[in-house]
């Protein structure tokens, strides 16, 4: 018997041997978990909004975003806990970090240079295959209602879920990496969003190492809030 026939037959026989998953129960579990996370997320929005409002009142103007591994224990601990917790979760106002952020003009070559500076030059061809050699454009990061989207030009390059905490934003990318954002006091530099990669994420997106994609998209340029 050829190895191909053995593999195919073995997989089919094994599949028939496995028990059928309980789809109805699984559906209830999934929707319940999804609804629970949404509720938690709304509560986090309210908490972060209260903390961030105080920060903005004191002319805090810079945001540093730090990406870490998926190990929650390695995430930075927020240094400024919220002064008060919200008592209601209805229609929480947007946090100042939520909305649309646009980078300074950035070129593909600048992204490639970011990779080279970080020893990731081998990922440059994969980055070009993933994003295309776009010449000069802007990267847009949108943080709305728990969904974070990164677009290069008009094309979506990456999406994540995010949650707001007390002075932090945690990104949770469905294809692998997670990250944490930390609000920092930096007087007089305007409302800027700077992404800093602390720990390399694992995994890959379409053959492109996650670390390379994340560094290229987030760390090549700084971002300015488009909507207030």
């Amino acid at each position, binding site marked *: *018997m*050829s*190895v*191909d*026939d*053995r*593999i*195919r*037959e*073995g*997989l*089919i*026989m*094994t*599949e*028939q*041997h*496995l*028990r*059928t*998953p309980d*789809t109805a129960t*699984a*559906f209830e*579990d*999934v*929707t319940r*978990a*999804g609804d629970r*996370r*949404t509720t938690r997320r709304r509560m986090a929005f309210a908490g972060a909004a209260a903390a961030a409002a105080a920060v903005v009142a004191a002319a805090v103007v810079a945001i540093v975003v730090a990406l870490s591994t*998926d190990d929650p224990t390695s995430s930075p601990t927020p240094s400024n806990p919220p002064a008060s917790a919200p008592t209601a979760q209805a229609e929480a106002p947007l946090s100042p970090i939520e909305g649309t952020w646009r980078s300074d003009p950035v070129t593909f070559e600048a992204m490639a240079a970011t990779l080279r500076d970080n020893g990731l030059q081998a990922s440059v061809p994969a980055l070009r*295959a993933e994003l295309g050699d776009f010449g000069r454009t802007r990267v847009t990061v949108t943080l709305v209602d*728990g*969904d974070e989207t990164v677009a290069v030009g008009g094309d979506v390059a990456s*999406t994540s*879920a995010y949650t707001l905490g007390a002075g932090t934003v945690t990104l949770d990318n*469905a*294809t*692998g990496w997670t990250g944490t954002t930390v609000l920092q006091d930096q007087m007089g530099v305007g409302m800027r969003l700077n992404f800093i990669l602390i720990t390399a994420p*694992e*995994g*890959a*997106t*379409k*053959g492109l190492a996650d670390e390379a994609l994340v560094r290229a998209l987030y760390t090549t340029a700084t971002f300015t809030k488009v909507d207030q």
Partner: protein
Amino acid sequence: MDDTVAGRIMDDVVIGPRAAHDAAREEFRGVFAAVYPRVVRTVYFIVHDEPVAEEIAQDAFVELYRGWSKIRNYERPDLWVRRVAIRKAQREVSKSVRRIGLERAVAQPDRVDDTATLPDPELMAAIRSLPAQQRAVLVLFYLEDLPMAEVADLVGCSASTGFVHLHRARSRLAELLSEEVDGNVR
């Protein structure tokens, strides 16, 4: 204000979004029922553990549920969730390998081989010896009969890299199972 009109306005505000929510939920239920069992199967052949496979599949569907308002507009929402599940499964295997390595460094536990009750335990054991990406390529290619372009998209590599994974997996399995292997995938 006319009470009737006010009542209609309230209905628009309150019932309109709920009806849309219910419709989206029913749509999600349809996709779930059609895709979930297949996702569990695929993930099983990567992680080789039924409870873990169901847990990973459900995690992926929770992500789909949370992003449903956006992902439902995609051409193939089912591919999105399969891709997420497969990537999660691959990461789970990588973590397990590291975990087992650490356990072995401390002590040699008595491990139960739960492949023994399966129809071809030798094959399953051989597949478990493969790296996660090779397992994923193998099951998508042989069991699900997907073209390599789609396999590669789901696994997260290029098609040429997918063929490399497939070639290495076949060679390794042929060696372990003492089966014939030639240059052409069949």
